[in-house]
């Protein structure tokens, strides 16, 4: 997997820097960079994700094809039986 590392420069107010420094002195973070890294992680977790265009496009196609959830569950079950027989050479599905 590709790893992307990088640094970001942020301009903060003196008041915020003072607060961050006091948290560093209190031992909660190693340094300012450590604080910002934690803050970014926290924010990324909190933010509700947006549905990417690819998924929206696939959803539109599914709508056009009138695929219902019940149909999808049934079709997945059929494919699972096929795939199981092909992969494991077992004709008997129900034990």
């Amino acid at each position, binding site marked *: 997997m590709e790893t992307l590392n990088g640094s970001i420069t942020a301009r903060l107010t003196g008041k915020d820097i003072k607060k961050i420094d006091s948290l560093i002195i209190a031992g909660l973070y190693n340094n300012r960079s450590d604080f910002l890294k934690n803050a970014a992680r926290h924010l990324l977790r909190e933010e509700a*994700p947006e*549905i990417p265009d690819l*998924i929206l496009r696939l959803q539109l*196609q599914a709508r056009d094809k009138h*695929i219902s959830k019940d149909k*999808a569950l049934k079709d997945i079950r059929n*494919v699972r039986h096929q795939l*199981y027989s092909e992969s494991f050479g*077992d004709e008997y599905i129900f034990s």
Partner: protein
Amino acid sequence: MNIFFLDTTIIISSIVPDRSEYIACVSILLQNNIPLLTNDYVIKETRRVLEDFYSFDRSDINQFIEFLSTKLDIVKTPSKEEFSKIRSNDKSDRPIIFSAKKHECILITDDIPTKKDALKYVMALHSNEAIEVFEIKLAKNRS
């Protein structure tokens, strides 16, 4: 640490906006708090349903599978010997239940019989239950 093992029903339901509950599936797939896992068996099923049953655009399917590989860790399908000890009403569910158990995951599935059988071996939740139990934020459409 909690890890979700996603069944094909969750992956496919994330792109089938039939009922409001699809949002639960897409939110599970997009969240970044809980690591996601699945196996090759589920990925093969997903591709086959989209290609052979629904004839989705091939390049969109490829992109979707690629997207899934960035969101989920995909482990190998277990061998028949490995999953032979799993007892399930439908034998074809065993590779899924076994992988979830082996990797100590919580199985997320919207298929009621699969969930029922899986509960003998692992924690198993419906997508809506997972949203509630783990307080997962619901994904939103770009405004």
